[in-house]
């Protein structure tokens, strides 16, 4: 109970005081609960402090299913609390900003998390067979002594599981998650030796490999996933915090990177994005020991369902949805789910993946996901901006790295991923007022706040909207805003900063002013909801310290689909 109480306390603190990273909340200011601190915006959340060893905390996958399917309302709601004052996710043991904040080269994306080039050729010692998961697999130690998990493709859909896992690993790493080093490798069964302590019979190994498709030289294509560093101490949950980890203070369902994972998962059809496909590993880095949080096991992404092609329902409907079952029964088949109309490629190595019926808004995991349910428009916008960073050429190269033997398959998969990317970006970028890329420039009358419209920049909409801006002075200690200008409407995404109207100085000497900006576009009435941009003046040096999209951050939740 102590841990639950603590969670509630932390949530209260983070939601109502300045101890939250997301400081532009509408919470009342109390005591020294200033909205902005001198070190804002924070780009590093130091949750990698040295901690004592922790016990293993294995999750029951059945409980996860039962609890999330039948128990409603146990997760917290409200805006994400682990974001900085710009609405961005700071680097942490959960997430490292990569393609969202800087340009990555294709080579960099393809390199991903890899620190080596894959398992070394030569004899591989089979050292065990993990019980978890449904993918046929076993662990080996390569000639250099490095441990890998070897995952086999289902014989009926060769190349499918390994290719999607590699693609997803590269993309999730570029996004910012911590993932294992995965490789498409060639395994020579003649080089396998079952170790003495493997608790895995040679005959079992032979059976596993017996019907695997062979290449001309007798080798087998496999996915080699390097054992993650450190000591595995369980999986992380998508609610609450880990009670034995002092670094873990934000309820997981209120972490933006875990809520925004819904957008990425929808893009890549990662319908198995649940707790058991995560790893908490107790690692040591630069003398500090802490828990690092991994996403892993992407075998059920895109067209793959790990041990077969993806079920056509996958990504469209939870395993149990009472209203759909009733409707399905009572309409005698006259009502058909949209996913029943989907057409898939005949190529086995693509499985069941398509982009035409796919709907980013109604995409679903296998069963309700508390962090995904909690995602709001701000989380989705954050994620969609990152998705938009993946260029066509980058996607083409990532698919090529998965080494599909048929060029036709690679081409079709690339096309589907690009089309799904476009749908995801279009839906979630336009879901809220899409003002973005704020910067200050010096104009002839003083500083100018310049920004752009992400929907325009990404070619989703045509020009034609106007921008209404109103300036208010801001008192950082009380949180009070006082309008200092009329509403100005421009056809350009720009506004002069009224430098004489900054609010009173806070204890650090900084003064603040807020621009409240609405985008007027008849096709997108939701863009009228304002984005608030806070500027800070520290001795004549002005910077952008706050971006608040909460006015447009309505909870997205799980929408119904047909």
């Amino acid at each position, binding site marked *: 109970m*102590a*841990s639950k109480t603590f969670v509630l306390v*932390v949530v209260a*603190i983070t939601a109502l005081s300045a*101890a939250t*990273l997301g400081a532009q909340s509408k919470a009342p200011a109390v005591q*020294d609960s*200033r909205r902005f*601190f*001198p*070190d804002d915006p*924070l780009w*590093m959340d*130091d949750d990698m402090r040295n901690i004592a060893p922790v016990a293993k905390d294995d999750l*029951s996958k*059945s*409980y996860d299913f*039962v609890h999330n399917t039948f128990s409603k309302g146990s997760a917290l709601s409200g805006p994400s609390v682990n974001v*900085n004052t710009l609405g961005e996710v700071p680097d942490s043991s959960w997430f490292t900003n990569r393609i969202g904040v800087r340009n990555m080269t294709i080579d960099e994306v393809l390199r991903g998390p890899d620190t080596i080039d894959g398992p070394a050729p030569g004899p591989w010692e089979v050292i065990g067979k993990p019980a978890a998961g449904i993918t046929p697999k076993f662990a080996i130690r390569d000639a250099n002594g490095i441990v890998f998990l070897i995952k086999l493709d289902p014989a009926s859909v060769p190349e499918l599981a390994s290719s999607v896992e590699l693609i997803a690993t590269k993309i999730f790493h570029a996004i910012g998650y911590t993932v294992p080093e995965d490789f498409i490798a060639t395994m020579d069964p003649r080089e396998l030796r079952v170790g003495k302590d493997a608790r895995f019979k040679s005959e*079992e190994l032979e*059976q596993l490999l*017996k019907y695997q498709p062979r290449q001309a030289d007798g080798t087998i294509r496999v996915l080699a996933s390097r054992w993650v560093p450190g000591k595995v101490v*369980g999986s992380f949950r998508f609610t609450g915090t880990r*009670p*034995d980890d*002092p*670094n873990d*203070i934000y309820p997981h369902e209120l972490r933006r990177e875990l809520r925004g994972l819904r957008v990425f998962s929808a893009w890549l059809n990662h319908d198995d994005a649940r707790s058991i496909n995560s790893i908490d590993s107790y690692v040591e880095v630069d003398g500090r020991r802490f828990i690092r949080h991994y996403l892993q096991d992407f075998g059920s992404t895109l067209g793959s369902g790990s041990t077969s092609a993806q*079920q056509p*329902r996958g990504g469209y409907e939870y*395993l149990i949805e009472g209203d*759909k*079952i009733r409707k*399905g*029964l009572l309409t*005698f*088949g006259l009502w*058909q789910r949209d996913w029943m109309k989907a057409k898939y490629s005949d190529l086995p190595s693509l499985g069941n993946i398509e982009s035409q019926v796919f709907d980013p808004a109604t995409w679903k995991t296998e069963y309700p996901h508390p962090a995904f349910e909690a995602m709001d428009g701000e989380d989705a916008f954050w994620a969609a901006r990152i998705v938009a960073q993946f260029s066509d050429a980058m996607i083409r190269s990532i698919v090529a790295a998965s080494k599909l033997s048929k060029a036709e398959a690679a081409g079709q998969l690339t096309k589907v991923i690009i089309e799904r990317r476009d749908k995801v970006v279009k839906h979630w970028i336009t879901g809220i007022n899409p003002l973005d890329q704020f*910067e200050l*420039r*010096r*104009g002839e009358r003083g*500083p*100018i706040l*310049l920004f752009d419209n992400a929907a325009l920049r990404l070619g989703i909409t045509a020009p034609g909207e106007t921008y*209404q801006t109103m300036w208010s002075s801001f008192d950082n200690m009380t949180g009070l805003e006082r309008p200092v200008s*009329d*509403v*100005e409407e*421009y*056809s*350009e995404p*720009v506004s002069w900063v009224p430098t004489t109207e900054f609010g009173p100085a806070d*204890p*650090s000497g900084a003064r603040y002013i807020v621009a409240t900006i609405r985008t007027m576009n008849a096709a997108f009435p939701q863009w009228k909801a304002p984005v608030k941009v806070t500027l800070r003046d*520290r*001795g004549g*040096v002005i*910077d*952008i310290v706050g971006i608040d999209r909460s006015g447009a951050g309505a909870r997205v939740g799980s929408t119904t689909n047909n």
Partner: protein
Amino acid sequence: MTRTLVTNVAAIIITLSIGSVNASAQTQDDNAGRAKALSAARDQKSEQLTPPERSMTERVLYWYDNHDSRLSWRGLHVNMGNFSGGAGFAGGIGLTQRAIGQPVVDPYQANRIDLDLSAGRSILGYQRLAARVDVLNIAGAPINFAMSWRDDQMPQEDFYGIGPDADHRVSYRLDTTDTTAALEWKPFRRLSIGGAVALLTPVVGPGTDGRYPSIEVTFDPASAPGLNGLPEFLRTDAIVGFDWRDSSTHPRSGGHYQVTASQYDGRHDTLNDFRRVDVQLQQIVPLGNRYRRIELRAQAALTDADGVARVPIIYLPALGGLSTLRGFSNGRFRDRQAVSMSAEYQWEAWWALDAALFVDAGQVMHQLRDLKAGAFETAYGIAFRLHSNSAFLARLDLAYGREGFMPYLGFKYGF
């Protein structure tokens, strides 16, 4: 007041921009900082650490996750008795060993040996003991051999008389021990050719169903052949089948066609010798996609005997029950010939549940030439089939015929 300025200021900005003003200079304010506040929150939590705890529900489900969920132990398992319809609620135990002597179960392993033993009993006193040994992929070829033994005690089977108009319900007891050897060859994946030899030792006696008279009260050996005793039978079968369904237990497309020709020879007794041919046709027609379909089935069971020989009632073609003419009880109609057909409109109500509306029709007759278009018994109803992504799990058929409502619960796919 709203001022509207339509300007092209972007160009001006670019021209006049002489550098960004968002420098990182920072006023010192050592007493306050975001990082410091977060650090304090972590310090606070470090004072309240507790080990992860599971609720009782989670502990139970964690145990469930890590143990065999099939209620089995080393091949020993519980089952539902595997009785035919009418036996009442049943239960039993079984022992199943796959690929005996092999470290792993390989479906294609040459000379693989499987063993099944089972025993069951129902609340109506039905009992079954069964043993079966399969030798699969003999010498690496697509040839399977099965040897089975089964002892059934069925104390209250139903009999209504012979012919389409029979209506005197009685009960009888059938005890039978069957020993069968069967060989199957699959020259192609979809084609199977087989044969079997079976020794059958049936005994017919008074029934125990207190609601109805026992068979000897209403019928005699002339109206119920076999009532005065049956010999042991040697049955020889020839079977040919073609199966192109996409799944044998949860098909969504394709067809299955099978013909079985059997010769029943009474040992030291030719008065009960007869021949029987069973034709089973199944065709599944998807309606646009795999989620809606029409399933058509047609079955015929035809018997023939030489001279004065009779076909015992227990081997007469029968209609009624879960396999044919739902809406009538098991074995409701019996005669030398039986034909039946069924049409089902099936739809996927849920990924794990199919529903179906069905119509059945069937007719028994002494000779095929007695078949009359207007004499078919009919039944209709709704059915539900629970299944996994690929396999059948259970079925509930709710049928209506002229004799009323008949519910059927089953755990085996097939007709």
